[in-house]
């Protein structure tokens, strides 16, 4: 058994003295684990960093075996993000969320394409946070927990949507929210119908991450009895800090 495909490294843990147990995300084969021989060695550890895009070849005798990876670096997403604390946080969070939420060997081409786009957008600065929120929504949709933010779940209205039901993941208009407002999640302005990312600010990115975090925590990770990754928690803390700073 073997395949060759572009793949994004999600995780690589040292195994033995010089090898690494790696998890990569491919378009066709989904999240896939394998043994990267020499992946933790001095010469190859740089390749197997989360966020790097590689051309990976996987080989195993039987399809259900772990198999082994060989790889060539295509885009050094990790190295390019290392100097920028926010970009590195976004990259680490996205890789950890994908690694934890996706079922192994189940293809999710939209998640792969979204993560690839996110990695190439990292140099744009904090605006990439809007892309991250959208990517997390796409991930939830791929897993069967999609949010419906197009119309009010109560009234069917398409205007004045500023809340999201934490139970159903559907939008709620301000007029229909009534006394339940305190229990609803704020829908950030950049995700409202007709809005664009140009108006987004740190407070909205924080709202967006809180919204997707609620559903990721409950549906994607909660069903596995696992908490959200610590890398995502650190990103949320960083973005909340940006929002507080902007508020002052």
């Amino acid at each position, binding site marked *: 058994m073997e395949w060759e495909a572009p793949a994004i490294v999600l*995780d690589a*843990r040292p195994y033995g*003295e010089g090898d690494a147990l790696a998890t990569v995300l491919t378009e066709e084969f989904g999240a896939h684990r394998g043994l990267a021989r020499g992946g933790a060695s001095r010469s190859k*550890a*740089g*390749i197997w*960093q*989360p*966020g*790097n895009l590689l051309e990976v070849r996987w080989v195993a005798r039987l399809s259900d075996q772990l198999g082994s990876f060989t790889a060539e*670096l295509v*885009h*050094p997403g*990790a*190295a*390019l993000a*290392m*100097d920028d*604390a926010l970009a*590195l*946080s976004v*990259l*680490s969070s996205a890789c*950890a969320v994908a*690694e934890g939420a996706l079922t192994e060997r189940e293809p999710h081409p939209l998640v792969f394409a979204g993560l690839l786009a996110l990695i190439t957008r990292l140099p744009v600065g904090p605006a990439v946070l809007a892309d991250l929120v959208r990517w997390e929504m796409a991930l939830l949709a791929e897993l069967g927990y999609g949010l419906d933010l197009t119309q009010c779940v109560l009234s069917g209205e398409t205007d004045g949507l500023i809340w999201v039901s934490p139970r159903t993941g559907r939008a709620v208009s301000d007029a229909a929210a009534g006394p339940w407002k305190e229990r609803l999640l704020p829908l950030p302005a950049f995700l409202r119908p007709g809005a664009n990312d140009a108006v987004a600010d740190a407070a909205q990115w924080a709202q967006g991450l809180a919204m997707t975090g609620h559903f990721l925590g409950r549906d994607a990770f909660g069903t596995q009895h696992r908490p959200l*990754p*610590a*890398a*995502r928690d*650190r990103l949320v803390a960083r973005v909340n800090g940006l929002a507080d700073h902007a508020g002052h």
Partner: protein
Amino acid sequence: MNSPEIDRLIGLLAKLPGFGPRSARRAVLRLLQHPQTRMLPLAAALSEAAAAVAPCSLCGNLDSRDPCAICNDPARDRTLVCVVEGVGDLWALERAGVHRGLYHVLGGTLSALGGVGPDDLNVRPLLTRVVEEPVAEVILALGATVEGASTAHWLAERLQPSGVAVTRVGHGVPIGGALDVLDDGTLGAALKARRPA
């Protein structure tokens, strides 16, 4: 085939870095063939080191004295603290003889998937040190990995309120390295870290 004592010795040695079952067998054979000159001195040295060596209460270095020889050295620049991931990194910097200040061993890096969080690292003593001691600069000498860089950013933010200068070791072209054999990531980092010639 071997006696249980020999098998146990081979098994223990084979778990050490650099050893496998074959090399452990060869090492054990050599020890057994020279018990007086190799084995007993080694056993005594292991026993003494196990009893005497412990992490330094100030920096986390391994030494038989506490504080360690580096922390006790009056010739060291006490305004300069170099933060490293492990004792192996400290030894590498000492071998190179390029740092004349003090050290602080973190004991790892933040790792979401490895389950290493801020509380698992030797961070609190560092934050105390920079406030209570005359530290002017903290050098973050952590690995050029996603986990190393994430830890460096996180630590830089924690150190910021103390007012000390926080610097990082450079990433880029190694001494003796030709550009055409470097990977794209290292080249990118080298160009980003360019400085006036």
